[in-house]
């Protein structure tokens, strides 16, 4: 059980009015809000501890280095990586994926090799692979989906061959909420000798993450979708892969020795962390992970599952009946209303629900909800190929975090009910 009021107290941003109405923040798949502990950690870092990390003899630098590396230990435990050095700090999932495409891809992909992605990828797990495939003469293949938004695993089987060198797959779809069967995908990919990268942007705040049990080769994470600051991400990779990969960017920190003739590179993880990193935000990220750990993923998931169930029932009820604003069902006839269609109805889902309202553009729905203080995301959600597959130019997406409540969903359903009246 989560004590929702206690949790909400930790998120000052939630306690405000937008357009004269209490804020209802349902855009958590885009970014989650930050608890006070994270905000205070940032403040403390800049008021007391700011110094550049590594290679300095003074106290502040030692302190900030220790805190920075503490976050690495926390994320290592969070994803159960075997070794600390297997966790690299990046700007976020996008940079993590680009890093793998540009280093692993450049070294190991050859003409005719194949990279497999899914139909529901975010652009950040499509474009980096297109770029490297084009450069190397490799071929991009796509696992199709059914109309509910689930991968067609039989089709995946057909795509796999000894030519498959990488399967880059979203763990949880940002647009649909589908949880993909990544364990099975990893096993099958490994059986043909391919490596697997998981885009964990949406998964890591909802699901248990154990990279050793999963046996994924790479996992990309963003802090800001996990209650942490923006501009911080993590790339997990197996040691032997990181060691075999060339550096991503050149600069300070990533070198062992530099002369004008030749440079030798630092050990991992530093080999991939050129330049001064985003120290303050990395340090604050630890507090976000602590927040999740203290609540427990299972508690978070159970709460969010309940919210999703409540939302879906509420939306479907608008289609079936004429519901008065009090929520009391009055008539059970085909109502003179615009129909709501749920987009993304996979069996295994996180608390993300896309939908469209018949005859209403998603932009308009978003603006009307904003007028009621409700924040949702509208549009293609950076998944244009998925939208094309579904024959849509966009959806309205509500996505929940642990601090959302059924009362907020009531407000949301009431606002939507006003829009669907013809």
């Amino acid at each position, binding site marked *: 059980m989560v004590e929702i009021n206690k949790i909400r107290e930790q998120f000052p941003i939630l306690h405000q009015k937008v357009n004269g109405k209490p804020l209802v923040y349902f855009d958590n798949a885009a970014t989650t809000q930050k608890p006070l502990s994270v905000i205070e950690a940032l403040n403390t870092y800049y008021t007391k501890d700011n110094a550049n990390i590594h290679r300095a003899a003074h106290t502040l630098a030692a302190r900030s280095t220790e805190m920075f590396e503490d976050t690495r230990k926390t994320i290592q435990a969070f994803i159960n990586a075997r070794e600390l050095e297997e966790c690299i700090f990046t700007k976020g999932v996008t940079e993590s994926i680009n890093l793998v495409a540009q280093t692993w891809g450049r070294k190991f992909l050859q003409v005719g090799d194949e990279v497999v992605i899914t139909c529901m990828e975010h652009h950040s797990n499509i474009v980096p692979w297109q770029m490297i495939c084009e450069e190397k003469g490799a071929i991009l293949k796509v696992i199709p989906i059914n109309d509910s938004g689930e991968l067609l695993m039989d089709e995946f089987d057909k795509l796999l061959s000894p030519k498959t060198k990488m399967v880059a797959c979203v763990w949880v779809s940002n647009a649909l909420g589908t949880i993909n069967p990544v364990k099975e995908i990893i096993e099958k990919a490994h059986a043909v000798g391919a490596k697997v990268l998981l885009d964990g942007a949406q998964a890591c705040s909802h699901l248990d993450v154990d990279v050793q049990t999963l046996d994924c080769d790479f996992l990309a994470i963003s802090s800001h979708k996990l209650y942490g600051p923006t501009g911080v991400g993590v790339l997990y990779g197996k040691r032997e892969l990181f060691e075999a990969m060339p550096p991503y960017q050149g600069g300070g920190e990533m070198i062992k020795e530099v002369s004008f003739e030749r440079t030798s590179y630092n050990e991992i993880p530093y080999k991939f962390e050129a330049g001064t990193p985003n120290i303050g935000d990395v340090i604050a990220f630890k507090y976000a992970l602590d927040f999740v750990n203290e609540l427990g993923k299972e508690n978070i998931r159970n709460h969010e599952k309940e919210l999703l169930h409540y939302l879906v029932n509420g939306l479907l009820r608008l289609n079936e009946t004429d519901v008065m604003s009090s929520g009391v069902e009055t008539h059970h006839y085909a109502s003179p209303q615009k129909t709501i269609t749920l987009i993304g109805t996979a069996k295994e889902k996180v608390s993300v629900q896309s939908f469209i309202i018949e005859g209403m*553009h998603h932009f*308009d729905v978003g*603006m*009307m909800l904003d*007028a*009621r203080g409700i924040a949702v995301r509208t549009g293609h959600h950076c998944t244009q190929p998925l939208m094309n597959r579904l024959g849509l130019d966009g959806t309205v997406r509500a996505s929940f975090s642990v601090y959302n409540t059924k009362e907020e969903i009531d407000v949301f359903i009431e606002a939507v009910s006003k829009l669907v009246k013809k």
Partner: protein
Amino acid sequence: MRKSIEDIQEEIISNFELFEDDMESILFYLMDLGKKLPAMSEEHKTEEYIVKGCQSKVWLFPSFVEGKVIFEADSNTEITKGLVSLLVEIWIGQTPDDILNSELFFIEKIGMSRMIGSQRSNGFTSMIKQIKMYALAYKTSQ
């Protein structure tokens, strides 16, 4: 006799004042205005008449009748259609000179940017530019 551009704007301002900043009512009102916009003939909804710079699709088809500029307009989103309808209401049937010399003071008075956000405000500016361009073209063709 067509009302002056200034008078029409004053009317729009007083209509919006009725809502006392209730954003939801304002948006519903805009959608209603959009619904009242005369239907645009489908054959005019071509790539050529799409207003560039709008997030939603907006079509503006101009014609020039007896020295006055006439518009047909449409959008794929209802709120934007309401916004276009404001411009059509103000500028339809006016002379190119009046259009080119007019200043749209109603935009600030009704708090448009706060109402529709910066992205849509940019789109709205694109519509204004487009209409003024058509007016300029008709003026020089006279």
